């Protein structure tokens, strides 16, 4: 057991855990942040995707000790009011079926758009293909990423005015 300090969703937290514990289980079991999902535990499905300093990572295989001072962002920290362009687009296109994979999809999509604000269709398909959706919502996911990029660019240009 170790006492570990983390920066999660802009808040400092302290947990007493074995330092090998994957971040996923620290979030879910110790911090009651259950929006990040377990799907496979071996970095295959993407359900557990969170950001480490803005980079999407598989929290199921990331030991909490490796997080260090990096800022962790989970689905709960993306935008509580669901106003992030990706969340808005996801709702507008009604992407979720069972919804279980969607936290991981959204965190992946939002990170993709930060790097590449105007992705082509091929960029979107390639960027999202590491995340499994058993319900088969892939088409709407692809369309929603495109829509989110439009929403984001519209709000950016209105901000500039």
């Amino acid at each position: 057991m170790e006492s570990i300090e983390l920066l999660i969703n802009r808040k400092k937290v302290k947990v007493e855990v074995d330092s090998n514990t994957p971040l996923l289980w620290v979030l879910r079991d110790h911090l009651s942040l259950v929006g990040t999902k377990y799907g496979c535990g071996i970095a295959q499905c993407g359900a557990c995707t969170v950001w480490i300093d803005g980079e999407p990572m598989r929290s199921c295989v990331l030991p909490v000790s490796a997080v260090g001072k990096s800022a962790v962002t989970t689905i709960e920290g993306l935008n509580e009011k669901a106003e992030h362009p990706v969340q808005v687009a996801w709702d507008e296109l009604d992407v979720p079926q069972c919804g279980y994979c969607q936290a991981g999809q959204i965190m992946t999509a939002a990170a993709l758009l930060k790097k590449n604000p105007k992705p082509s269709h091929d960029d979107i398909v390639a960027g999202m293909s590491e995340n499994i959706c058993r319900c088969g919502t892939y088409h709407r996911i692809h369309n929603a990423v495109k829509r989110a990029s439009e929403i984001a660019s519209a709000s950016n240009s209105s901000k500039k005015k």
Partner: protein
Amino acid sequence: MKTTRRSFIQKTALLSGVFSLGFDWFDSKANSGIIEQMNPVLDANRFNAFLSIENTGKVILYSPNPEIGQGIKTAFPIVVAEELDVDWKQVEVRQANLDTQLFERQLTGGSGALKHSWERLRKAGATARQMLLQAAAQQWGVDASSCKTSKGFVIGPNKGQKLAYGALVDAASKLAVPTEVTYKSRADYQLIGSFVKGVDNYKVLTGKPQYGLDTQKSGMVVAQIVRPPAFGSTLVSFDAAEVKKMPGIIDVVSFKNKVAVVGKSTWEVMQARKKLVCSYSDTSNLESDSTHQKWFDEGMKTDKAKVERKDGDFHAAIAKAAKVIEATYECPFLSHTPMEPMNFFADVKPGSVLLAGPTQVPQSAQKAVATLLGVPENTVQVELTKMGGGFGRRLNNDYALEAAELSSIIKMPVKVMWTREDDMTGGIYRPAVRYHFKAGLNEKGEMIAYYLRGVGLNAGNSTRQDNFPVGAIDHVLIESFNYNSAITTGPWRAPITNFLASAEQSFLDEVAVAAGKDPIQMRLDWLQKVKTNPVGKITYEPDRFIEVIKQVAEKAKWGKKGANVHQGFSVYFSHLSYVAQVAEAKIVDGEAKVTHVTAVTDCGEVINRSGAENQVIGGIIDGYGHAMFSKLSFDKGVPQQKNFDTYKLIRGNEIPTVEAHFVNNGIAPTGLGEPALPPTGGAVANALFAANKKRLYRQPFAGPDNANL
């Protein structure tokens, strides 16, 4: 017992300022006075929805059916809100827990929910609307027929007469419940058939706890269970000394060939269970893939197969046929792999049991747990959680029973979680099946004789003997043979038809080629025959079949897409819905690849355009992905694929584009969670054949078994 409609409707003003209607119809037939007594079958199908309107105008609808991603929690309220004539923004939907007094048929399975509840839901909304309208008319002293409703208001004939439903709640709740209600006409629908977003979207998008695996209760411990790795083996002994020394471990207990590791946190339990030493009974004679092949071979030859249907004289007809076509098709076992693995919470205390978790059949969980523990059913409470998919897996309550049994042993509230490996190797699979088809054609190329034998492993009757093209063919013989395997199986999205349709629709394509006919025209000719002169009993409506076929031919531009687009056709009737598909393949880098699927579905009235598209497109991707890629194989009883690294699910870069069209003919709605899946495998195989002239007989199509075909 003589029943009248009035006795089915209870009206209660529970709290002042709240108008609640409990609707309790056991069958729509009850309204025509046909049902004289409640027989057990009808009783089991009874439904009781609950609707309340607060004086703020807020409408609360309790959704009784478990939500697995099929969209029922959105679709049901749409129907009520439409007939009630309220603004969708006024409606709040809540998930009801299991309540056998209040609700019936609280289950999700067989694509049956809407079909079952359509009339009742409409009546619920229309009755409340009529009472609100009546209350306003009385207040204004006008005739109710001169009033109308609009988006949560009653509007009277005179200027300024407009009252919100919320203001009428008290008065309406004191009125007698009307015996006759009128429904909106289809032309006036505002919500039904529109694009309505999922009611849980906000929670999903912000990561709110709602799934079974998110359950946290005070004093709760977590557990994982080590089950025998091979189907057919038993636990002989185990040594948990090292496990117990691991940090965070509370207890290790064994029951029914299983060893449960109980601890404080998921990760600690996952680590500790690795130290468990188990010895199991001898596995050398357990089932492997080669065993299954041997059984299939034997099953195809046995004279003990069960005759499921016989029209005319198949053997005599085939002997006289001018041409005979035969083919054999086979599919492997499949895991359901919902994204949320199995899990359940149980707290067994003296006198009360609390269960919470993802189940498609909460009532049978309640019953089974009561029986297991020897306690009265009414002491077992079940909280329903949203489900991260089900696909049929959660029709089996093995994991809920395990949790209850474990809690009763350790006397603690416990959440049992299955890892992905536990989930994939823990059973209740889609059964492996082999089919053999034979068709006899006369000189004119007409199919006069049709034979099918299905050999399944724990599949029961692996045929659907009354389905089309049966009814169009004079001489038919359909047989099934089942092997009892140690590998546990159960319903998997569109049970049996998920592969039967694929095999059958591929075979009929071969028949069309052999007969020199267009595959679509061949079906249409058969359906004409069924209309005028059906052979034996049929369970489908030929006109609805014809319509989806004609529409898909038109939408997909059948035969008109040019030499580089290779099309494959398929059509199937299941869960009372009709789905026709045309898949398109292209040669990309020398390989045939499916690029597009067009589907036309007749599921009657489309309730939610968004949800309906999701189900059809999702069903097609599911059908395509599993047909192409997925397989669970066995060696001495042990599943060989344990996680997504070796068990392949379709990914976003492997999907064809999909177009989903609906006939939307206004007929009472039928199932949609499953029917789009069965035709997909056939359409895909036929398109690939059109592209590269290779027939696909074995799923997964992209697997090594098809490399040399």
